[in-house]
């Protein structure tokens, strides 16, 4: 605190004294109500009045009482007397002039009339929202509830007994925990150029990057889907600023961003190709109407030919069996050669969702649920994650292998974040003192359990024509709460600071199996 120009003691009242900070708050270590934990803590949902004034004549709690996971419902009918002044404490009073549950009177809109205490899974399912309450917009697509129910099915949640240390397997205590996950989705600007080449190959170009998550592959998949040209005849060029503008790789937005640009570019290129096929004098399709033609299996055909003939082309050209009958139509490269062109090029763009009134009318998010299991050996304070089931609603999945691998990688980071990773700042020098991979621990394969990833694969009708929102960070979102909940279930120790350390777990009162 600055000490300059402070007034003399006699004058301090009324002077502009600099604020004395609450150090706990300024260094971020102040504890709030949510930071405290109590044994056997349950969670509750408030039922609020939907009118501003009136009287509760009847409260029908029978449906809620029949729900699995419901523990207790408090309301004015079963609460004991609510005091305004505390007995024998004249100077202590309750500032709320109209306490909830006091009686059957409603004094204001939103007054608590009941509180439902429920168990974790059911609480989440019951609490599912059909609108984004932050923006008051409908979700473009949301299947969080199904993420929970599918995950509960996989881990067999109905066998869950909530008491810490109550579940055992093979002489070890096991703990289960679950958590939801969400990650925003957006379509950011992108452009891509597609070139149909006279050598029968397709080149697609975009300045976005291939960081190993499948960007090259997705471009090629779109090209193959639209033209039928084999994947090994498709060349994807990325990662050069001389290429058409592409997005950064991040925020799980690359897939949703590149798909429309790739799709628009290849569609335009095909339209040009078909047009040229009908205008080139020595083309077998000269004079035909472009809209009667189509490109499939890398060949230009009439729509009749396409319907009649085979067009189940293999992903790779070498896979085509020799025994197949000759294909109908004309190879696209033949038309390009006949027209004496060096190639047919078209550029496609992605219109950002932030500027699209249709997209802006929706809240776009991906959703997911993690179900984690830990194994706990109290005698030696050894905790290991033994199973993780992750269920995701990320829109349509363009590449199951790439998508799954992204989630697996994120899950590994989630395990590291929860159990291992921590930067220790040397208190005197401020230096991170464990700044090497020998001292800063990330998970090894031995730390990783069976990771079971499921995509619900519901196309998002708003995000783009493929319905794909993108996959990445969401695999890590929610992982730490799922594992720490499992840690609590196994050990009875509620860890509020990551990572969970052996010294925290040594406090466990759970005894050996």
């Amino acid at each position, binding site marked *: 605190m600055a000490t300059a120009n402070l007034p003399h003691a006699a004058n301090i009242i009324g002077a502009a004294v600099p604020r004395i900070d609450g150090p706990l708050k300024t260094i971020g270590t102040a504890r709030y109500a949510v930071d405290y934990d109590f044994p056997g803590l349950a969670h509750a949902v408030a039922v609020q009045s939907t009118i501003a004034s009136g009287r509760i004549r009847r409260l029908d709690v029978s449906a809620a009482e029949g729900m699995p996971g419901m523990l207790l419902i408090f309301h004015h009918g079963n609460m004991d007397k609510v005091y305004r002044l505390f007995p024998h404490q004249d100077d202590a009073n309750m500032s709320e002039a109209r306490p909830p549950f006091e009686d059957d009177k409603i004094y204001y809109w939103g007054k608590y009339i009941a509180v439902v205490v429920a168990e974790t899974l059911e609480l989440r399912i019951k609490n599912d929202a059909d609108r984004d309450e932050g923006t008051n917009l409908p979700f473009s697509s949301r299947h969080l509830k199904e993420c929970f129910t599918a995950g509960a099915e996989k881990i067999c949640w109905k066998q869950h007994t909530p008491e810490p240390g109550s579940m055992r397997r093979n002489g070890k205590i096991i703990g289960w925990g679950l958590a939801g996950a969400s990650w925003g989705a957006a379509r950011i600007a992108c452009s891509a150029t597609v070139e149909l080449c006279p050598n029968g190959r397709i080149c697609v170009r975009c300045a976005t990057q291939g960081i190993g998550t499948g960007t090259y592959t997705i471009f090629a998949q779109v090209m193959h889907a639209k033209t039928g040209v084999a994947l090994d005849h498709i060349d994807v060029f990325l990662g050069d600023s001389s290429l058409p503008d592409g997005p950064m790789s991040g925020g799980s937005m690359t897939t949703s961003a590149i798909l429309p640009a790739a799709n628009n570019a290849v569609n335009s290129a095909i339209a040009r190709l078909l047009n040229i096929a009908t205008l080139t004098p020595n083309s077998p399709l000269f004079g035909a109407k472009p809209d009667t033609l189509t490109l499939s299996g890398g060949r230009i055909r009439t729509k009749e030919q396409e319907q009649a003939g085979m067009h189940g082309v293999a992903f790779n050209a070498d896979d085509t069996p020799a025994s197949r009958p000759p294909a109908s139509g004309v190879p696209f490269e033949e038309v390009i050669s006949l027209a004496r062109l060096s190639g047919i090029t078209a550029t496609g763009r992605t219109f950002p969702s932030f500027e699209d009134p249709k997209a802006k009318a929706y809240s776009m998010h991906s959703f997911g649920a993690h179900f984690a299991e830990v194994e706990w050996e109290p005698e030696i304070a050894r905790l290991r994650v033994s199973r993780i089931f992750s269920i995701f609603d990320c829109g349509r999945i363009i590449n199951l292998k790439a998508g799954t691998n992204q989630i697996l990688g994120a899950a590994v980071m989630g395990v590291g974040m929860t159990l291992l990773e921590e930067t220790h700042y040397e208190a005197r020098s401020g230096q991170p003192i464990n700044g090497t991979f020998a001292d800063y621990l990330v998970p*090894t394969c031995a730390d990783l359990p069976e990771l079971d990833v499921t995509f619900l694969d519901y196309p998002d009708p708003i995000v783009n024509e493929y319905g794909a929102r993108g996959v990445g960070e969401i695999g890590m979102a929610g992982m730490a709460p799922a594992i720490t909940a499992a840690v609590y279930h196994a050990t009875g120790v509620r860890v509020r600071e990551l990572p969970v350390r*052996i010294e925290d777990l040594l406090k466990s009162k759970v005894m050996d199996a």
Partner: protein
Amino acid sequence: MQTFEYIKATTVDKALAGANGGKFIAGGTTLVDLMKLSVEQPSGLVDINLLPLDKIEALPNGGLRIGALVRNSDLAWHPEVQKSYAVLSQAILSGASPQLRNMATTGGNLLQRTRCAYFREPNAGTPGGYGCNKRTPGTGCAALDGFHRMHAVLGTSEHCIATHPSDMCVAMAALEATVLVEGRKGKRTIAFADFHKVPGETPHVENALEPGELVTYVDLPKPVEGSRSVYLKLRDRASYEFALASAAVVAKVEGGRIRYIRVAMGGVGTKPWRSHEAEASLMRKAVDAAHFREAAEVALAAAHPRTDNAFKVELAKRCVVRTLKMATA
């Protein structure tokens, strides 16, 4: 990294002759790291990989002679080691990674230096850097009031609390190995318990080697007939991580009573920590969890924990109890 001379020695004599203030290098898994960090700045390296010290041989007395250049992997997977000295095989395989074990040698493992983060800081022991009495005697110990979660609770002094990081050495302490060394003055043998030094007032003196002396062999005594041996390592990560606490136990049970017992601990001591106190407490006692806990209590009775590593005391006790159970089951 500083520049250095490099020679390859083909005989022990040539290696000793070339040692002049330099360092011997075998697997290099510790030394090269430390040279990159400027912790080690040898003027010269004598590569000893060509010396004929890479054999494991049976001794006439029923023991086993391990050449100083035997790779950790070869030692851990040697059939006689797996059969008669299981604790040693388990200890080696619990350490480092397969790649490191393929390179690291028996002699090098004995001379492995501490993982103390302050010791490994390039500026430690230099003006303006962290105090480190191992690096530069008299500069103090930054770990005492710094971050010391991984540090030792046994054998510490006001001058150093650095943990000895080896797993292999903990097993060798329990097996009562002997270290054979050779210098220009001749050959000598050093009992394992005397090989490593606690820091005391001279933390820079880590072992009994004289300048220029070379570890040539480690001898294991004849296995104790009817004994069982176990190594258990507790750590933050399931693999590729140093011990928070570990235990090596060699035990022989007859008629439900303990007739032979050796207990050593890792991850908690400034040297591989043999607990004669635990052994004395267990001899002739019935195989019983309560006796094991008593032994664990006396094994850690002299512990001097600090803030971050206080949990190691309880963890080490639990480790000793579980290892005793495993070795006597």
